């Protein structure tokens, strides 16, 4: 093992112990380790933002660009400048221009992402379970594919019904303030079950990952202590 590997190993061991000390009680050691991480990553991020985004997008192209291209480059520089200057409370109005620009971009990205990236592909996937070619592809599994398709449409309709925000439109049909319109209320009960099943499975995945991290850290501590005690 090289000396640098030993040093990094010891640092990793100490940081692990400092963070895991939180399981006993919140201490100065926990804070020091997290603040060390925050400080280092913050500095690293500044370097990355400057070296990978701002210099290549704004400054370096200036040198090789024609005059008309330079005029185009002035727009993001101006927007960035307005955003920076707008941090002074008296000049806050100026930063509203770049923020309005970003709001428009974010809104369009959200709309495009939601419809093209999620709604259409997910809708397609639901409908594909009803594809006769898929259902009859394996004669022995026809009943299973039909069951799959039935459960899929029931589950998706149920889950969507669960999220219905409004009460029944007619005031006479509003018995409790939590109720949805009648038909959606029935499906929402089914949806509640499917939602629980999904969240439970995701929880199991998250918990397993976290548990693996815990086992990994215990192994690191055990390994380091073993090396230390073995060397005595």
């Amino acid at each position, binding site marked *: 093992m090289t000396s640098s590997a030993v040093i990094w190993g010891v640092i990793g061991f100490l940081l692990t112990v400092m963070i895991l000390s939180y399981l006993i009680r919140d201490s100065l050691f926990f804070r020091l380790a997290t603040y060390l991480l*925050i400080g280092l990553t913050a500095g*690293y991020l500044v370097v990355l933002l400057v070296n990978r985004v701002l210099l290549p997008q704004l400054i370096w192209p200036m040198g090789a660009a024609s005059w008309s291209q330079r005029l185009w480059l002035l727009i993001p520089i101006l927007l960035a400048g307005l955003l920076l200057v707008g941090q002074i409370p008296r000049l806050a109005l100026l930063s*509203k221009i770049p923020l309005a*620009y970003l709001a*428009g971009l974010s809104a369009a990205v959200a709309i495009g992402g939601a419809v093209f990236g*999620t709604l259409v592909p*997910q809708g397609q996937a639901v409908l594909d379970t009803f594809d006769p070619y898929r259902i009859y592809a394996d004669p022995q599994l026809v009943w299973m594919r039909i069951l799959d398709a039935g459960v899929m449409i029931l589950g998706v309709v149920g889950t969507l019904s669960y999220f219905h925000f409004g009460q029944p439109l007619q005031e006479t049909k509003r018995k409790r303030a939590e109720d949805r319109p009648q038909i959606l209320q029935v499906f929402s009960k089914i949806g509640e079950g499917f939602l629980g099943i999904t969240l439970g499975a995701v929880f199991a995945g998250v918990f397993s*990952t976290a548990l693996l991290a815990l086992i990994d850290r215990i192994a690191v501590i055990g390994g380091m202590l073993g090396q230390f005690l073995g060397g005595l």
Partner: protein
Amino acid sequence: MKKILFGAITLMVGLVVLAGFFFQDPFGPALTLIYQWGLVLVAVGGLIGLGTLAAFHIRNIIQQKKGWISSAVLLAAFLFSLIAGFVLTPQNAFYRDLILNVQVPVETSLLAILAATLLYASLQLIRTRGWTPLSIAFMASAVFSMLFNLGLIQTASGTLGEQVLMFFRRLPLVGARGVLIGMALGGLVMGLRFLLSTDHPGGER
């Protein structure tokens, strides 16, 4: 007047980006340019945010607030990382090792703490949430998924048991599709609210 101006900027940028999704040939270059400018603004916003972080801890130190020693450590690490990054460049082996050898143990250990937190909280699930269809389905699904992930539930290949097991394995996907479709509708309407200025970026009403 100001509101109309900012609303017009938002709408114009949004419409050009959406047009770029639809008519990729004529609007493609404009879309790339708008994205790049947006990235520049997000990067500048990132720098402003990190300035806020530094200012917060400088204030803690000056006012000697509780935990000011930790703030001093943070600022020292920040300055060291910043100077080392600009002098050595992010590709430098030492600099990369420095960041990774702090980041990996600390973040993995925080994830390990999450395991303990989740275990403790999940044991109290029924006490806090009660016996509802949601909590029962959640618990049953979590236990089943864990047992399956650990390889404790197995069936012989090509049997009816395997088909049934695979059916249960696919069930979480059904709810996930419903949730994702629903969230896409939420994202669509939220995007339209900002685009059409029924919500404003500066929070005006």
